């Protein structure tokens, strides 16, 4: 449930942090108070909570408001609730019930919360809650025997920053009867993936050569995601999904590592062709560098080794692809230190009022854990994001200062791979250019090759940025939109916009949503307002292309302030 993940308002500690956060979860207070003129009038707020599918009242729902203080009640058997003596005005209603989602949680986290108006002759509020979906089932193996302690995962496709990603969102494991159950599902389409397990019986029936086990399998009993069916779960639906697996030969990868530091931990991992990590369980002998993997089904894998030397604060990396069809012995991996990439960032100033911007005091752990406070000039943050590659699990790498006290900004310990580079100005600037040698990092990916010297990343920032403001005509069915400003080169800038809050004024419902974008690089933009802020795949050129015809074009010169009015474009499926 989404509300559990809210940050506790008070910092507190407990032996059971998970439960604690549940206990202390308090809810974001509205940033507005009563919108009526100051008055001492107070009225009752009444309402009912119902099941969105059946219309039936739901009892025992926690309803909360904040007016002067947080107030909470549970609905009665008829689903009704009431708050007496609420000062006149508009209040947010937070509603919670295990097994249900609020419309807000389902449609969009940014969608408007339920609200009620405290005033004379206000009608009762009706709040709809959407029942969860549940997927359950069982996993059987050879001879129809239940497969125990077998992991089961649901993947959903999500759009993040305009790009489709596959998120592993729900995990379960079969019990001693081979059964699994996953609840708290929002309606949607899911891939269901079972296995591979970490317990030996899931890998191998016998531990000698000729071992057999159950490989990771997508529903309906297919080995890879390309052949898999997505399972559609509707609100309130209970779905049964069963797997019937056949055991297959399993093999092991053995070999030796070289070049690793004497001290420090090692992490050896096997990733399959779909980018899924196989269960851990490498045997590694630090004395002679020999290793042996767990049992794995036949297939293509990438073997990666990652080590950290605590003294030198250096990371060492190696990776190799293998096609596993029988036991492999004698594989050799030589680990090499990650690269440190210096960053030279420069601000070209045309204004005189921004001299001190971009200088800040940073506190960070220097060499050997010493805490260092340093007045630094850090005009931009640089983030590398892995594009595929074996070290994809590491996610992002943020630029920081090197261990020496006078070290420049750098990206340290960068494992080999291909990265997209994101530059975020730390002041009133825009990124005019970001280059590595002849590479334009605003358009091209950065390839970090093992063992080579890294070229510095050269960043030029300018302060003669352009600004854009405008409005979006939302229409009667939409309360929010996303505005995209698409430059000729580089990533679109986005803004989420919302209709102004409802107020007693009848005109406000038709008011357009207003937006502002600052710090734009001068140039020509195509500007688009779309109705789906959360799953519009604008990072996919094919998807974006379809709607570019509906975009408005605007040219912005240095220091120019542009103005634009947009119609809402529907980009639904």
């Amino acid at each position: 449930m989404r509300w559990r993940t809210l940050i506790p308002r008070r910092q507190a500690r407990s032996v059971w942090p998970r439960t604690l956060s549940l206990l202390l979860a308090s809810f974001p207070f509205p940033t507005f108070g009563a919108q009526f003129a100051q008055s001492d009038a107070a009225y009752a707020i009444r309402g009912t909570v119902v099941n969105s599918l059946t219309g039936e009242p739901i009892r025992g729902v926690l309803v909360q408001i904040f007016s002067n203080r947080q107030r909470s009640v549970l609905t009665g058997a008829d689903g009704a609730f009431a708050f007496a003596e609420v000062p006149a005005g508009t209040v947010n209603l937070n509603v919670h019930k295990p097994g249900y989602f609020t419309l807000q949680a389902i449609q969009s986290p940014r969608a408007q919360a339920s609200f009620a108006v405290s005033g004379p002759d206000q009608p009762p509020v009706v709040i709809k809650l959407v029942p969860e979906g549940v997927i359950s089932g069982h996993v059987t193996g050879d001879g129809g025997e239940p497969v125990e302690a077998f992991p089961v995962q649901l993947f959903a496709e999500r759009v993040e920053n305009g790009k489709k990603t596959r998120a592993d969102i729900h995990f379960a494991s079969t019990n001693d009867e081979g059964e699994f159950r996953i609840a708290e599902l929002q309606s949607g389409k899911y891939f269901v993936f079972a296995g591979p397990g970490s317990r030996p019986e899931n890998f191998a029936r016998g531990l000698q050569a000729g071992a057999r086990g159950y490989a990771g399998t997508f529903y309906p009993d297919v080995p890879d995601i390309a052949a898999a069916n997505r399972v559609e779960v509707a609100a309130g639906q209970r779905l049964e999904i069963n797997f019937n697996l056949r055991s297959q030969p399993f093999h092991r990868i053995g070999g030796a590592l070289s070049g690793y530091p004497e001290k420090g931990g090692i992490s050896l991992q096997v990733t399959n062709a779909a980018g899924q990590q196989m269960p851990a369980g490498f045997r590694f002998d630090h004395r002679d560098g020999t290793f042996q993997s767990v049992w794995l089904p036949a297939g293509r894998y990438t073997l990666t080794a990652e080590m950290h030397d605590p003294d030198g604060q250096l990371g060492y990396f190696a990776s190799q692809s293998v096609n596993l069809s029988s036991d492999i012995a004698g594989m050799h991996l030589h680990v090499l230190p990650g690269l440190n990439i210096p960053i030279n960032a420069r601000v070209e100033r045309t204004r005189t009022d921004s001299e001190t911007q971009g200088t800040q005091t940073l506190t960070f752990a220097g060499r050997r854990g010493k805490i260092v406070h340093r007045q630094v000039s850090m005009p931009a943050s640089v983030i590398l994001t892995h594009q595929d590659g074996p070290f994809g699990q590491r996610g992002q790498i943020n630029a920081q200062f090197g261990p020496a006290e006078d070290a420049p900004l750098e990206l340290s310990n960068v494992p080999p791979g291909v990265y997209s580079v994101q530059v975020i100005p730390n002041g009133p600037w825009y990124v005019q250019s970001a280059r590595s040698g002849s590479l334009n990092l605003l358009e091209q990916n950065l390839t970090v090759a093992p063992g080579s010297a890294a070229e510095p990343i050269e960043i030029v920032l300018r302060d003669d940025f352009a600004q854009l403001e405008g409005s979006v005509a939302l229409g009667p069915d939409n309360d929010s939109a996303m505005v995209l400003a698409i430059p000729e080169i580089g990533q679109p800038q986005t803004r989420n916009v919302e209709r102004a809050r409802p107020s007693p004024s009848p005109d406000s419902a038709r008011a357009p949503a207003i937006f502002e974008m600052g710090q734009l690089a001068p140039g020509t933009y195509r500007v688009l307002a779309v109705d789906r802020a959360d799953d519009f795949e604008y990072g996919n050129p094919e998807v974006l292309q379809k709607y570019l015809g509906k975009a408005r074009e605007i040219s912005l010169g240095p220091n120019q302030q542009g103005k634009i009015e947009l119609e809402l474009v529907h980009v639904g499926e």
Partner: protein
Amino acid sequence: MALGVILCLAMTAGGWQQQAPPVVTEASQQRGFRISGTVVDAMSGAVLTHTLVSINAQGVRDSNQSVETGEDGRFVFENLAAGQYGLFARRRGYLQQFYKQHEQFSTAIIVGPELNSENLRFEMRPQASISGQVLDEMNEPVRNAQVMLFRRALALGRRQNWQQGSAQTDDLGRFRFGYLDPGTYFVAVSAQPWYAQRVMHNGLNRTETIGEGSISSSYSTSAPQSFGRSNVEEITTGEPELDVVYPITFFPNAPDIAGAEPITVRAGDGETADLQLQPVPALHVLVRTSAAAPASEESGEGENVYASATVLVAGTQLGVPMSSQQISPGVVEISGLPPGRFNLRLNSNKNGEMTSRMQNVQIAGDTAVTLSEADSSGTVSGVAKLESGAALNPSPMIVLRARASDEQFTTQADGNGEFNLKEQAVPPGTYDVLVAQPAAVAVKSMSATGAKVSGRSLEIPGGQEVRLKLTLSQGTGRVAGVALKDGKPMDGVMIVLVPEVPEHDLVLFRRDQSDSDGSFALPGVHPGKYTVVAIENGWELEWLTPGALEKYLAGGEVVRVTANAKIDVKVKVQQPQ
């Protein structure tokens, strides 16, 4: 044969740690031996097909071999070298187990000339399960409740309760414990009402002192409240009627294990344990340190204090869900406790310096507690040195083990052998004192002020400081031998090494199970005088009960163990009496 950590070994099926040194004799050069037998259901005697049977030669790396039984339940390992083999079987629906496994002991198969390692009958016990559903006061499922499973069984010579596992309820409030040994269990649930709203105080009136007393007033108005002798500027969130907790609830509806109903499961059976939780008002406790005097509040600035609470269940301190909030320097409010007896711990971080205070308190209503650094339940300190007067290097880990609760209090001595348990509340009671690390070090003798010493046990009366003086011995001996019944070696027999004064020297007991040739080995025996006894079908004997072993002593063999001694004995197998 004594096994390593059972859990670890069950997971790796043969990759277990060896306690016994490798058995490599001249005979091990010979090959061509066999281990064979039939796997049967221990209850019905029916043969078990498709059972994975594994052997592992003790002390030989990667010597693991496995076979699957056929339609006749038979398994055969051929062309084996002479040696000692662990025999292990695994099948769905049965407990993973070693041959004739009892607690952490089993009968290893000794293979060699003129030894019988064939036609073994491997009886597998079917696993049992306990499942159930947890409902709340509205008869709705409680999700994500923590369900704890406790076992009552014979362990280390007496009937004990211990936590065997835990599980989380699903969206239907259901839980399931599979893979259970037949036996007696208890089920307990720890959960929080999902809708609970804690009433929180936002500050104290700092001009007045806070003393012991009860928080008797309600929190429902916004007027300043009396909080002990002080005022609380009451600003709250949450409704008092929703400020509720579920106490830890044992099946069917008891606050503790003493009132709980034992659940007895037979091999292969599944039992049900449904529970319903009832909320009670959450208690609020003001906890302050005696050091943080109101006058020195200035010095309290920058001090970060937080509290935690645990409850002792079956020898384990379980964390209790609660919230802790610092409301003025050195003063913490704990919210969300059910009534009960808790160990309250207050951790303070002042400019990087950590201090911890703990106290065992009974909480029946809203109250205030002062935790002093020196806990009234007893400060235990001492010094541990070798007979020569030298301190041990590396310094030893000293353990006080409470006989009543099995709770362990552990501390590391410093380079001079000095140790203290001042940050742990050691309640009055009887304790066995032992050295956990290094393994070859034992308490040879001890004396104490503030407590009564008998052998290697300690009786702490409470209310005064306890100072221990431990004399340590270094080096252990090994007792090995063979169990004989009517002159013939017997396997599966419980071997007990009984110290001279059993009731005071529990820590000196050693046990083993005789292997297929009747042999046994007890390594790591601390110097002293012992009696070795062998008891057939002795596994249900509560041998730690005073007097339980007395009648066997006359039929045992007396040994005197010195450091590095290797003692060989023949022991007559006795029937349980």
